[in-house]
């Protein structure tokens, strides 16, 4: 598969900016902004002292993005502080997921990252208490349609997104990492058991490094939304690079854990596409071992073809005539993985005929 996107070329090899013309910069800034990666690009360049080499006009945009990313990081920290305040009375662990976890652990994956929400995971038996506490502290539920409420509460792995009334921030409260109805069944209890406490907070935790990677992979390759696909792939790349440097046995631990959690398939995809698109260094042994999660070759070819489109920045410069069909097929695939056929049929019927249509 070929993946010639200026943005990924520069992310893989930041030094290559010395060869860019101003016209290339024009395209690069636009692709990065579209992929929600302008902040990450800027922080990569800043980290390698390359920002000063950037021509003045694009430099302004990169510096502005660094500012936004910094501000978002502070906002996420404050949001976590508010959430913990709200649930202080509940004797349950609160596990930060995804971006907020990277920020609170100061992982490289947080550098320059843009956020749209905060995600937490709580034990299912505490879900009601947590939801109630959040409601008492200014969060309200969205998706007021009765069918949507039931969709989330009965079948999904999370509550309908909650919105804070005054700060207008979004919070996703999960009780597991895949829908209850999904094909794969990672046991949330296993995730909770290995969660790691966060210094400076009572009861706040993040997933263990292996689980963090697996969750990121599951989220990217099993959800149907690829709006932030490339952003999420760069998260995976940053996590893999960081954890494999920290811990020599990381790759074996990762694979063992994938087996325990029934997540060898998303791990396989994670390694396949991070190495191919972002040149993440994964030892050959680990890649070989991860192939136990590989699907048949027809599926691999199909996924290569689809993800080639889906993981590009959704910028007009990257979109071809196959992009929309590819995104649509991945969306369909995600639903196929999410629900058994009978339920899926019912869900689609409802969404198509009964749900109130949004009026433009």
């Amino acid at each position: 598969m070929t993946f010639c996107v200026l943005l990924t070329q520069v992310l893989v090899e930041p030094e290559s900016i010395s060869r860019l013309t101003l016209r290339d910069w024009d395209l690069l800034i636009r692709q990065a902004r579209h992929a929600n990666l302008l902040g990450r690009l800027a922080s990569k360049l800043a980290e390698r002292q390359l920002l000063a080499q950037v021509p003045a006009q694009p430099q302004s945009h990169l510096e502005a993005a660094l500012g936004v990313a910094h501000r978002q990081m502070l906002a996420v920290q404050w949001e976590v502080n508010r959430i913990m305040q709200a649930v202080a009375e509940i004797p349950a662990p609160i596990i930060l997921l995804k971006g907020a976890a990277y920020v609170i652990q100061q992982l490289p994956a947080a550098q320059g990252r843009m956020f749209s929400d905060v995600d937490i995971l709580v034990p299912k038996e505490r879900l009601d208490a947590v939801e109630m506490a959040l409601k008492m502290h200014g969060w309200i539920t969205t998706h007021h349609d009765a069918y949507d409420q039931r969709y989330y509460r009965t079948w999904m792995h999370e509550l309908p997104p909650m919105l804070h009334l005054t700060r207008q921030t979004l919070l996703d409260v999960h009780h597991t990492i895949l829908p209850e109805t999904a094909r794969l069944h990672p046991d949330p209890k296993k995730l909770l058991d290995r969660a790691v406490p966060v210094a400076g907070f009572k009861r706040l935790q993040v997933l263990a490094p292996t689980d963090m990677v697996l969750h990121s992979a599951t989220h990217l390759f099993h959800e149907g939304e690829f709006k932030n696909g490339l952003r999420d792939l760069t998260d995976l790349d940053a996590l893999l690079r960081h954890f494999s440097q920290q811990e020599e046995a990381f790759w074996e631990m990762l694979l063992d854990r994938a087996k325990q959690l029934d997540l060898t398939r998303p791990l396989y995809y994670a390694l396949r596409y991070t190495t191919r698109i972002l040149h993440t260094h994964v030892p050959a042994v680990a890649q070989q071992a991860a192939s136990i999660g590989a699907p048949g070759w027809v599926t691999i070819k199909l996924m290569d073809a689809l993800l080639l489109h889906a993981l590009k920045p959704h910028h007009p410069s990257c979109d071809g005539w196959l992009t929309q069909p590819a995104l649509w097929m991945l969306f369909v695939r995600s639903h196929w993985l999410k629900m058994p056929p009978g339920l899926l049929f019912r869900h689609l019927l409802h969404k198509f005929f009964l749900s109130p249509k949004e009026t433009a």
Partner: protein
Amino acid sequence: MNVSGLTVNALARELRREGVQIRIGTYLVRIQSSLSSIAQGLHLLYADYPLEPEAAFADFHVSIDPPKNVRRWLAPQVIFRTDGFVPFKPLPADQAYPLLEWGLNWCISTQYHRYLVIHGAVIEKNGRAMILPAPPGSGKSTLCAALVTRGWRLLSDELTLVSLDTLEIVPMCRPVSLKNESIQIIQGFEKTVTMGRASHDTNKGTVAHMRAPTASVMRSQETAVPAWVVFPKYEPGVTAQLDEHAKASACMKIADNTFNYSMLGLRGFQTASNLIDRCDCYTFNYSNLDDAVTRFHDLAQQ
């Protein structure tokens, strides 16, 4: 070459094809559109602005076109996109031109944080800038439009750009947006103004844009030093009254009227408070534009 160097048809053709790159102060904006109303609006209101077709880097890439569905013909709508991203819902086709101006405001106030971006007009005389921050309905644009026809230079009628390091005011001189009665008031106040086509029934009522004075457009690269912050308020029947305004409260009002104040964090606070330190602050109640012009003339002479 300036926009006026093209015929309206040639401009329309360029807009439809590759788009045109227009220099607006420090920004280079690339605009694409298949709509004749956009070509006409730009041809009339941006006549004095330089075209830079060869420039390799544009700060913003915007387009405004009909949607690719039935709303192209049936109760026609238009969509504003910045580089494919759609920040607003489609609007009736009659509002295409104001939508373009609003879209550009959106790009500058949300995507470019090299300046403190205050929601307010800013004008200049003798190198000194007067900032008029105000919520909608305070008559700031009307006042600004009147003053720029009487010797003040227009830096912006909507977005005051304050340089974070030097506090200089960076011009972003564009057409002045006027609403409802203000359109006739300004046309009556100064017969020579060029007014664009009015769009009716927008969110803000009837909207029309007044062409920025040529002299202001020509000086779009020239910054100004902030000297005054004036909070205007239009009140029918009052005689013009300029009162000193406490600095602490002026600073809070500036913060409230700044799009990216909290985004900039400490830097935003420092810039806003240094700005206020450097300026004389006033409130200004008025009903008559001639009185206002006299008062501001006196202030500039002090």
